[in-house]
């Protein structure tokens, strides 16, 4: 099974060809925003991080920057720095260069101020946008795909309609030699033993149990028992009664494939197959982590309905029920409520979703892309307590 992609110098395949304006600290948000607003076609996001960070927390944030700068869906990068960030800006630029991308590094300090930074950025972005049209597209096998799976605003239907349908897609990607990421560790709580049994080695099984324990202990330090604080108010209104129920529904997204690897937030998988990335349950921090890890496409199931998307990756939104699909047609791409309505089986809906994923890989725009959604958020592990 093949799709039309953009082969990149590092061997990865892009399914989009974005020019990314990447602010590596909040100091450059406004400059990035002005460039993206005035150069149609360029994409950016709002970043509230990148200064006053250190240690593991900084390392994780830098993984996200490098993951975005070198991402296969990105053609070229305008890298914006203040000039006093506590890390080497060249390291981020190099990550993009090694991945074969044109890069322009602009710092406020060197370029001489905001107006100059905006003008220089506009100039480079326009240049990259012209050049990107020459990027060749090739028909490539599905084994090149790294699918991110996600659920948010879960309801009582999530575990019986949209998530199992996504599980079918995930299994098909894995069977084709591709990779699928299951994440949101918070929503594995209560189901971790089942996942551990699916690990290909006992060590990987132990890692699954470890990351679940770690997030529970992290919230215990805040004086909150996650098993008591979840499900969220919106989940309860949607008919979910316990965190275990939510988790058991959540893991259906990952189908039935064996688990070959457990990776940290924003890391790139080293193996093909089903992998688990340790992320929080927060929709956008999770999404950002999977994108930074190299996912070229994300399928996101939702019971209550969510509008969100990524600046550089198409996100296919799947509703778990027909009511939400009808209510939020602007935002939802696919209705898996047909399963609850008994119009389709899980296998049929899964096949239809798989076909839709192929269409999107081949260039069909998702609702979030049409609306210009650009949510971004880095999972911070070093807050000042």
């Amino acid at each position, binding site marked *: 099974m093949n799709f039309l992609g953009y082969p990149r110098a590092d061997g990865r395949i892009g399914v989009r060809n974005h020019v990314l304006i990447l602010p590596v600290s909040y100091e450059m948000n*406004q400059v990035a925003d002005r460039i993206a607003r005035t150069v149609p076609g360029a994409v950016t996001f709002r970043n*509230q991080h990148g200064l006053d960070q250190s240690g593991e927390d900084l390392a994780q944030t830098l993984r996200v920057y490098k993951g975005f700068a070198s991402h296969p869906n990105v053609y070229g990068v305008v890298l914006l720095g*203040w000039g006093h960030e506590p890390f080497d800006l060249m390291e981020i630029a190099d990550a993009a260069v090694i991945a074969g991308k044109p890069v322009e590094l602009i710092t406020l300090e060197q370029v001489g101020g*905001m107006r100059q930074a905006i003008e220089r950025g506009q100039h480079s972005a326009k240049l990259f946008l012209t050049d990107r049209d020459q990027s060749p597209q090739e028909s490539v096998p599905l084994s090149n795909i790294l699918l991110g799976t996600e659920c948010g605003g879960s309801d009582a239907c999530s575990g019986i309609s949209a998530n199992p349908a996504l599980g079918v897609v995930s299994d098909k990607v894995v069977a084709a030699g591709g990779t699928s990421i299951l994440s949101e560790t918070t929503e594995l709580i209560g189901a971790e033993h089942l996942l551990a049994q699916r690990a290909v080695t006992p060590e990987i099984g132990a890692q699954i149990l470890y990351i679940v324990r770690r997030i529970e202990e992290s*919230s215990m330090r805040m004086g909150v028992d996650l098993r008591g604080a979840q499900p969220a108010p919106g989940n309860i209104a949607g008919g979910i009664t316990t965190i275990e129920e939510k988790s058991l529904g959540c893991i259906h997204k990952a189908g039935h494939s064996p688990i070959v690897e457990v990776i940290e937030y924003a890391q790139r998988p080293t193996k093909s197959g089903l992998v688990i990335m340790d992320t929080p*349950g927060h*929709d956008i921090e999770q999404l950002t982590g999977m994108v930074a890890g190299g996912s070229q496409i994300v399928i996101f199931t939702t019971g209550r309905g969510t509008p969100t998307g990524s600046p550089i990756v198409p996100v296919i939104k799947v509703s778990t029920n027909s009511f939400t699909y009808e209510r939020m047609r602007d935002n939802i791409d696919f209705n898996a409520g047909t399963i609850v309505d008994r119009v389709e089986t899980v296998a049929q809906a899964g096949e239809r979703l798989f076909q839709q994923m192929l269409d999107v890989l081949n260039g069909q725009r998702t609702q979030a892309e049409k609306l210009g959604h650009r*949510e971004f958020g880095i999972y911070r592990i070093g*807050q000042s307590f």
Partner: protein
Amino acid sequence: MTLMGFLRKDGSLGIRNHLFAMPAVVCANQVALDEAQKHPQIKYIEHQHGCAQIGADLEQTRQVMMALALHPNVYATMIVGLGCEGVIARNLYKDARAKSQKNVDLVVIQESGGTLGTENQIDQWVSQRETEMAPLQRSPIQWSDLVVGVMVDPGLAKAALPQSCVQTLFEAGARVVLPANQRDLAASWTTPLPTVDYGNAAPNPVWLMQPGANELETATGLTAAGAHLLLHLTAHPHAFGSPLAPTVRWCVEEPCYHQFHGDFDGQLQDKLDLPRLMDQLAHIASGQHSVAETYSMDDFALYRIGPTV
């Protein structure tokens, strides 16, 4: 000069008449962003919070959002919720209405037909509020009606000139809020200064607020604490400002000012500059735009005290 501001029906006093679109959760960002592009007069924030937060961290986020929604420089706030967020936009709205006579409205994406349906509702809100605002005029106010947040580069708090700035603002009658890690700015005070949590106000003429983990988080905190104006003294160029409190940035180093003068509102060399600074602050309070406002450098970062889950 005479300061001119807007008197509010709730007794507060603002130096801007902002329409403020405030997403209660990251999932509502795009609505606020789209609306601000469509109606450039709208102030907005874009952030990654409001969901998957717990305990004291969730509570602090709620309090900061509440304080921003009720900020004195805001004429009307539209809280934008998704419908399943942890901060619960509807509760924020109810609490804001119970607490104040401020014009606070609510729109919930899941109940409004998604992104575009929600944006239609906000379009109507903008035209309704703008009609109400059209006849409003500024009237004379005093320095004592205003709160000024002051922040400086690390290390500058011990310098004489920034300390004189704070002293001058105080002598003019303004109330002053300072980041608690820059208490040296108020070195001349003989009485102890109260220290409150991030984003909180105190009734005192001068008070200290727990700072954020970076300068933008601190600017957000000072704004939430009720600062009408932010004064930022620094030896570096910056490209951020508060969306709600006009941010006035003066450079304290000659070479930096020389190179980046377009990014600053002025240069502070010695005490003789203080009357010029005070005069400019009075003009900006009365409606003149600071450089940060001219560039719309509205930015937002929230100080978090707990992990995302």
